[in-house]
């Protein structure tokens, strides 16, 4: 069976558990951004943005590079792909299982009539 690197997955999902961080990742998917550009849509302080970026960095989702007086942030997609695969595995399991539930309910529904 495939092992997904549990630690990395834990860090990835912990990073993804916050909606602000998810929104930052969505923005970075469209391309690099400075910390300032990332902060713009959110009514939170730059230190708070930096804190979120720290979580994303430790999860290996974002890479920061100094660019003059600011930092440019770049998405590293590999952990996201792993998280997606993890979710997809359960999606396949549950979709099949819930479909069989439908068949069962229909069968016992008929039997009761």
């Amino acid at each position, binding site marked *: 069976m495939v092992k997904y690197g549990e630690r990395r997955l834990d860090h990835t999902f*912990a990073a993804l558990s916050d909606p602000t961080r998810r929104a930052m990742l969505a923005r970075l998917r469209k391309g690099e951004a400075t910390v300032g550009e990332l902060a713009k849509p959110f009514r939170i302080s730059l230190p708070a943005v930096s804190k979120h970026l720290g979580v994303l960095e430790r999860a290996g989702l974002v890479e920061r590079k100094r660019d003059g007086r600011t930092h440019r942030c770049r998405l590293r997609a590999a952990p996201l792909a792993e998280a997606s695969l993890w979710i997809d595995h359960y999606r396949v399991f549950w979709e099949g*299982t819930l479909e069989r539930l439908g068949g069962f*309910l229909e069968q016992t529904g008929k039997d009761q009539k």
Partner: protein
Amino acid sequence: MPDVITEQHVLELKQTYPYAPDRVFDAMTRPEQLMKWFGPAGYETVEAEVDLRGGGRYRIVMRKVPDGAPFSVGGVYQEVVPNERLQFTWRWNGSHDEGIETLVTMEFHGQGGATELVLRHERFPTSDMRDRHNTGWSSVLDRLAEHCNTLKQGASQ
């Protein structure tokens, strides 16, 4: 090639069944019914045990039809609201994600004789939370708090 790059952090699925919530809830929680349907296509459930209450355990043993090696999933119910809501930990033994505790939440929404089942499957945000849920710790604490409240009310009357 599918775009697997997404900020998705939980699995969420919805499925509607043309039966009342109690039928769907029973199918999901009664061992004799689980035995008849639980598992994806190509698998069968060979054992099901359910202790349906907060802090109670469940265990489901499955195998690939016709003679795959059995593997199991089990966990602790965090929340049981009959015909409305279930939340339970989920841990495989002998299969993918061996030993990792995750969390499943099911909501049964009645809509005029039909039921919309909303399922969420997620990892715990921290391993602390995971350890607490594993032993039904939060439900034990809840019951203890409730008990103390009852004692206090009794004493002041």
